[in-house]
């Protein structure tokens, strides 16, 4: 599977209700170090209710300059959330389906 199959596809809950689009995929480098860098384990997907064009990442970072732009983009991406890998039931080019008891987390990046 390649990332581009995933980005921008629909995310639905177990009943088929659409929650948004995959705007990003989060990884963590927390395994034991391998050869050079530890494995990049998939943590989950960032779901945005509106649009997947999240190239600026303002909603996930502590940046608020230049102010009007930051506000605009933050507003476009309001309500986006992170779903962990454990809560994903199906994943592929046709979209992502979540398990019935999924938890939505804030998509803010840890500083």
């Amino acid at each position, binding site marked *: 599977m390649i*990332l581009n199959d995933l980005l921008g596809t629909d995310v639905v809950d177990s009943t088929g209700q659409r929650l948004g689009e995959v705007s990003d995929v989060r*990884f963590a480098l927390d395994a034991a170090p391998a*050869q050079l860098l530890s494995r990049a384990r998939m943590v989950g997907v960032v779901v945005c209710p509106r649009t997947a064009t999240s190239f600026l990442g303002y909603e996930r970072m502590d940046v608020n300059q230049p102010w009007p732009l930051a506000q605009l983009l933050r507003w476009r991406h309001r309500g986006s959330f992170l779903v962990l890998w454990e809560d994903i039931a199906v994943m592929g080019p046709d979209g992502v389906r979540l398990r019935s008891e999924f938890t939505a987390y804030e998509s803010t990046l840890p500083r």
Partner: protein
Amino acid sequence: MRKAKPLPAQDIKPAPRQAGLVLDAQLHLLDRQILDVDGVPVTTVDDVELSGPAPGEPIPEGTEAPHITALLTGAVLGTRIFGGRPPSSRFIRIPWEVVAGVDTVVSLGVRANSLDASWLERWMRDQIIAKIPGGRHDPE
């Protein structure tokens, strides 16, 4: 396109703490410059290949999370922009094992010449540039 149902704000829980470096692929990985061990630009991250579940198949609970197997470059860029998908045999892979660090650039732990990703650069060097007088000398 069906309209998405927004989640009520109180249902969104604070983010779990992650140990180690956290990367959002789109934000921190895609379209970044890749430098080799000597700091020579190799290519850009045009896409990322994941291990793991067969696309579209149900994932049994407790399955191990997928991980990044390789950074992809070459033809995938075209299909990423214009749609479609090259056969995976056409991917040019930079295995995750040779990645040494991810910052504002992705740095590798090997030399560019040892990678498939640099074949075009090497071809142009050997067939064109090296044949023009002065091509192998420092500028004066």
